[in-house]
Each structure stands twice: as C-alpha cells, then as structure tokens.
C-alpha cells in the first residue's frame, strides 16, 4: 500500500509546454522548464501532494491578507458592468 502511494506521489503528470520557458503539469500550476535548470541549480524531488499543498497554502495566505486589511473586497468586474447600466 505504502509503496504504491509513494510511487504515485513521485510520478508527476506529463508536462505540457505553456510558453517557450514554462511547463504545466497540474492545472494552473506553472513551472519553469526543467531544461533551464541544468547548469546552475539542482532540482529537488518533490511529491505531488507537496506541490498541491504549496499552491493551496498560497490561496489561504492571499485570503488572509485581504481580511487582515479590510472586512470585504469590492469586485472590479461588478463595477465595470455597472458602468454600462
């Protein structure tokens, strides 16, 4: 069971080239193209759950910053629509 999960976590989904210098493995999670990280930096081996955890933690952090400074956030999309009303 454990070894199955381990393998699962360390097998990344196939990469899709997004721009000449970036790839995407998980939806909306962009990574620097590994071919640009060969000369000067060593890449860390990362389980998939950790990638997802970091992304989720980022969203938590952004939400926290909003509430830290103001009680609510006004939507620009709604204001833009109201310009045409």
């Amino acid at each position, binding site marked *: 069971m454990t070894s199955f999960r381990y393998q699962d976590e360390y097998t990344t989904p196939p990469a899709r080239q*997004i*721009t000449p*210098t*970036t790839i995407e493995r998980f939806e*909306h*999670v*962009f990574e*620097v193209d590994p071919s*640009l*990280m*060969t*000369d*000067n*930096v060593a890449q860390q081996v990362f389980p998939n759950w950790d990638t997802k955890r970091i992304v989720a933690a980022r969203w938590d*952090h*952004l*939400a926290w*910053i*909003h509430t*830290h*400074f*103001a*009680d*609510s*956030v*006004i*939507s*620009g*999309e709604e*204001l*833009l629509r*109201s*310009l045409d009303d």
Partner: protein
Amino acid sequence: MTAVLEASIVEQLVAAIAPVLGEANVLTSKTARYSRARVPAPFPVHRWAERVPDLVVLPGSTEEVAHVVRVANEFGVPIVPRDGGTGLTDGAVPERRGIVVDVKRMNLIHEIDLENRTATVGVGISMLKLNEVLAQHGLIYPDNPASYPCSLVGGRIGTSGWSLIGSRYGHSRDLVLSFDMVTPTGDIIFVGDGGGRKISKSSSGYQLKHLFMGHQGTLGIATTATLKLYPKAEAEFSAFWAFDDYDVAYKAVGALARAGIATFAGAVLFDEKKVEYLRRDDEAYIPQPESVKALVCSVGYGNSDEVAAGGRRMMRIARDLGARYMGDEISQGDWASRHDRYATPVHGRTLSGQVALMSWHCEDAAINYTDLPAVTREWHAIVEKLRRKHDVFDDWGMFAYTSSDTGVDYLTEIDIGIWEEKLDDTTWAAFVDAKREIAAVSLKYGGSISACHGSCREGEVDLVPQELGGGYDVMLAVKRALDPNNIMNPGKYGLDRAYDNEGDRR
C-alpha cells in the same frame, strides 16, 4: 576594515552591561553576532566577516538602552541600532563592528487609546502583530511596506519608511506621532510634534520629529512610539489593467493618481521589462497574450460606499483610456501578493536563459511623474550595460508607484537580480559604479536618490552631498553636536566628515 575588539575590552563591556540588562541579554556567540552582520540587500558574501559586531545586546527598556549608550561612550565603541534587520541601505550593518543594539525585545503594546485613536508601543513590534490586536477594536495602523510582515516600528522610524498605501494614509513620518529616544550621549528625550505625545500638528519649536526619523540610527535610538490609528477599512478595491503599450499605461497611471478620489490609496505602473520578467515565472502573467506590454494597478480603501464609488470612477478612467481589466482573480490576488512578490523569486536568468539563484536588489528613487519615461529608459540602459559585462546580474523590470494623493512623485523602482554567491571584488565594483550612475540619473531629473530605504550604500552615498547641497553641511553640524564621540552608527552617510579624525574607529 575595522579590527575586532580585543577580548579584554569585550569582557569589560560585558561586565559593564550585563548587570543592568541581565546576562541572557548580552550575546557574544558567533551565531548571535554573524546573524546580525547583514541585511537582505545583496553584497559580496566573501566580505561577511568584515562587518561582524563584537557583541550584541537586547535591552528591555529605554533606561537599559540609555545605559548601553553611556557605556559605549565611555569605551569609545561604535553602537548600531537594529530592529527587523530588513533595511535595504545597510543601515543596520555594523560597518565598524562594536555593539549591535537589537531592540526587538521592546515589543509590548503599552496603551491603546480608543477615544483619541492612538497606540503606544515598544519599537520592536511589527505592524502585522500590532494590527492583529487592533483589529479586535476595528482599528488599524496602516503603515504598509512590502516588508510588512518582518520590518518593525523602530526600523520604520530609523528609515522614515514608505508605505504601499501611503497615498491614502500617509507614510511612517505621518503615522508616527511621537517617540522616546536615547541620544548618542545616552540622554533620554521625547520627540513629537511639539510637546504632547498624541499631537498631530504643533507649531511649537523646531520640528524635531522629522530630524529624528530617517537618520538610519546615526542620531539615536527610538524606544517607545505613539502611533496614529485609523478605522480598519470596511472595503478594499484593487484593479489591474493590461495595456498594449507603455505610453498609454503611463497616461492612465497619471490620470488615476490625479483624479482626486478620496479613497485612492495608490497606483502602480509596471513597465515592459517588468511584464517580460513576470511572464517568466508568475502564474498570473505566464498565460497572458503577447499584446500585454504594460500594466497599471490602482487601489482604494475605506468605507464600503465610498470605496465602491471611487472604484467605479477608477474603472471608468481606465476604460476610457483603452485599458483591459484583468479580472477579479488577478486583481485581487496580485494586490494581496504585494508583500512578497518582490523578494521571494530568489532566482533569475543568466544571459543564456539558464536559471541561477539570485537575490533581490532594489533602487528606490523618488521621481516626478513627468520624468518617469526618461528615467526608466536610462536606468534600463545602465543595467543592460552591467549585465552584458558581467553575467551575474539580471534586469527584473521597473515599477513606478504613487507616493502621494496628487500624483506629484513616484517611488521609482528598478529591481535587479544579483547572483550573490558569484560576486567578487570586480563585479561588486561594477555594481557600485552602476548604482552611482543610477543615482546620478535621479538627480539629473530633479528627483531624490531614495523614496523609502535611505541612501547609505556604496555608490549612492557619494552623491548625497550633491543631492542635499548646503543641507548636507547642516547634517554634519547636527551629527557633530549630538554625537561628539561619533559612536552612533559611525560610517553611515559619510558623516565621518563631521570629525577631524575622519575614518577613525570611533
């Protein structure tokens, strides 16, 4: 380079200080000293050992600070105030070694005055921690630098800091009402607008508060400060717009800043190089079409109805100039990223496009609106030349950010990635020359070398007398009068010139 103090003198200093501060608050270990030798501004790390203090003290009160300063005078040993240690002009770096006075232990909230809307705090507190407590009362202390989570009130006083929402609430100099401080001779004085602790405007006597803010610890150590509080905003509005070219974005940022919107808290212009840089690594910009060449962001805070009305006006101004709104997710998320987007990338690109670990350097001039395009061009040319010569630097683009509610001047920032590990004496000298050229451009256009951090670093500091003219001579006279032994953060701002024995250890 200053020699380390003889062990016997260090022992005598410890013997004089420890009985008052307590032994646990006088540190001589290598880790305690080396970790207070630098700030985040990149520097040639092979020279780290040149600026390590002889000892570190952690006073717990104004009286304890005064005691340490008196001892330093008696022994003629340099003393360097240090708070968060995030300052970017090397202010907290002990260039002449001596005693680092780390004020972080003085971090209590002494009083929250709900009626007069003030808080009195020890200068070792961070704005973030203070605001967690103030939020329980519906209040906020809105000094909001990008270093918000880690810079502290004493450092904000020492640098006279700049706030991201300063166009709405003012900057550190407006928000700090008064403070107690210890002068370089160990006297305790109170500095404010006139005499009262909670006075925001007085015409009584000289306006000393400004003198004792932004001096980079060369004129004393602030210990307890009284701060001006605001109601925590009911609402926040932030919008990011994309533009096909820089010139239109430049027009838009000017129009937004000049619109006189009461809830307006700041507007930012991102130039083409910044967009290019963001496209490399930033999830919001990687998928943007090639047509996006420049960005503008504008922000408002206050009561919900007023923020909505102001936001609506901002949306109209931008739309009329052909801006494309980037949507709520990017607009809200990117604004919430304001405290880490600058410094955390920790990597840049060499000329071949390969990733290298790089630290963040930031130039931070104050430039008038009308000069932004010319300064932007000239600064990029300087960095490009540097980069072509030494492949350890990277141009991370420029921001121009309103400093006030009228749009008169902008914090103008070029971010430079520096492969710090590779900095040797040659590349460092080239960088210092580039910094000097960058500062010269700011002065050529009638600007100031620094809007936020101060101008103490190699390169820029040479031009401070030119920037201030006769005012610099007044600085020398003030320094000499208040610090007769040149013990308070010596070596900064070229103030050794105030003494006959220029360059002495003291």
